[in-house]
């Protein structure tokens, strides 16, 4: 029941927000997308300290979601893991038990460094930065025809021991950039 109330709230929100700034609505959708990523990505079992440990969605830098992320994530569970949102001010704050990391544009210059630092750690990195995939990021949002589209670099996810479902890849533009390190 709560689920439906939440959905109707969400839609009511969308209807209200449609009259608001486009970016607000955009991040509402992106929050839902981030939630949905958790359904189509598999994390290695050792990335969770226990079967009941929460799946942590981190936001690095300036938080564009506001309360929406919490709204979307509340009461959701993926494979027995509750979903929680954490916010990190700087790269150093990022915890080991983080699973999804949204990196905001404000830290764009540090992207490459961040990604290099996270190498080998099973964190799904998401950003709006156009060069994000070239820098070794995994998923990038972009807008086309007034719709939010995805670009995915499965190779990067694979090297982080993450498995992205082909169903997700089907919807996205798959990009395999030549990494500078090579």
């Amino acid at each position, binding site marked *: 029941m709560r689920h439906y109330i939440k959905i109707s709230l969400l839609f009511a929100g969308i209807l209200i927000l449609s009259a608001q700034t486009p970016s607000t609505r955009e991040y509402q959708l992106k929050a839902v997308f981030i939630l949905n990523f958790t359904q189509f990505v598999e994390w290695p079992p050792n990335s969770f300290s226990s079967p009941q440990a929460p799946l942590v969605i981190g936001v690095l830098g300036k938080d564009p979601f506001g309360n929406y992320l919490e709204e979307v994530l509340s009461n959701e569970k993926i*494979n027995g893991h509750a979903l929680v949102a954490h916010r990190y001010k700087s790269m150093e704050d990022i915890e080991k038990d983080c699973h999804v990391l949204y990196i905001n544009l404000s830290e764009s210059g540090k992207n490459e460094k961040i990604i290099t630092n996270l190498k080998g750690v099973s964190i799904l990195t998401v950003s709006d930065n156009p060069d994000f995939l070239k820098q070794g990021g995994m998923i990038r949002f972009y807008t086309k025809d007034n719709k939010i589209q995805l670009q995915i670099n499965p190779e990067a996810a694979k090297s982080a021991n993450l498995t992205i479902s082909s169903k997700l890849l089907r919807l996205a533009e798959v990009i395999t950039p030549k990494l500078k390190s090579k």
Partner: protein
Amino acid sequence: MTLFRDIPIQKKLMSVIFLISGIMLLVTCSSFFVYEFYTFRQTTIQKLSTLGEIISTNSTAALAFQDQESADEILAALKAEPHIVAACLYDKNGKLFSFYPSSLDVKKLPVKSELTGYHFDDSYLQGFQPVVQGSKQLGTLYLRSDLDAMYERFTLYSIITALVIATSLLLAYFLSQILQKSIAKPILALAETVKTISIQGNYSLRAIKLGKDELGSLTDAFNDMIGQIHSQNLTLSEFNQTLEQKVKDRTLELETVNKQLDAFSYSISHDLRAPIRSINNYINILLEDYDEQLDTEAKRLIQVVIQNSQKMGLLIDDLLAFAKLGRKDLAKVPLSMKTMVKEIWEEAHQLESNRNIQFVIQDIPEAYAEKATIRQVWVNLISNALKYSRKKENTSIEISWKENEKEIIYSIQDNGIGFDMKYYNKLFGVFQRLHSAQDFEGTGVGLAIVERIIEKHGGKIWAKSTPNVGTVFYFSLPKHNSV
């Protein structure tokens, strides 16, 4: 079943074979049909839900990320399955998200139901299926399949079934045509033989044995029976022939003996006549010539001799007449019996004119017979009637007749002394007398002569009598044209 009982055995066998194979085929085919119908429905449901599973699994991401193009693309792949006439994806809020085919009239789509699973509705198989990623429902898939595949399948099945039944019945027909012969043929052959034998009466015929089964044994048994009848018939007819021959031989012997006897009695009678005449002559001469020398006693004794010799003469005459009858053939002519009887009556009546006699003669018909002998019959019968009624005060004699198809029966009835019927068998015997000679004179030859005459004419004589009431004599003579 009464009708079935009466139809020929060949048809009976055929119908039995047909009926059984037909029923078996029908039962088998319909069970297969039902089985196939059931399993095919199950299979169709299973196929559709499998297809639904594939579609829903593939469309999770499209639903999750609101990618309608991708969802349309996934649903468009259903084109490969021509029996899918409609498919829809609803998002988790129950809103229509994508549909197939693009020409689908969205307004006519069913209201999304909470019930999941597929079921048959009118001419469709349709149902809803949740679209689940992990443990999360992302939406609902609706699929509708027409039943053309099923109809096609069942049409094919019906055609095959009809063909199988037709072929099987045709085969059954030809096989039974051949096989029933082995049962029906011996029976029909046997029946035919029985018929021929009973119609022709030819017991030398035998039924042909066609096999060593029960019918073969029946044929054997029948042939044995016919053989026995045949041999019994032969024995019987042989026996018959022997018997006939024996009868012929005996008759011949008897005839010879009879003739000899007739000849003997004739010659005896003839030979006896001469001496009795000479006794008569001489005793009359004695009486005439020595009348004066003889005393009264001698004359009385001589009278006794004369009476007895006359009696003997009469006896010999009667015997001679009786014997003569066997020796000559009859000369038959039409005779007026009434005239004859009247004449005889006049003569006989003269002698006993002192008696009170009521004589009635009916209008008796003509006879075709020999005059002299039939006259003798009437003389004897009328004199008997007069004689044995002599002791009655009033005598009544009636001569009557009746007839049947072949003969005329004359009768003479008196109210005389009669006789006891227990002596009837002696009535027509030679020298047989039912009354003493003292009471009624006679030689005992009269009725024997009458019987012999009537028998010689091919007729019969019989009598009915009650002592002291009277006697009726009947004799029959064959009608002229029936001789």
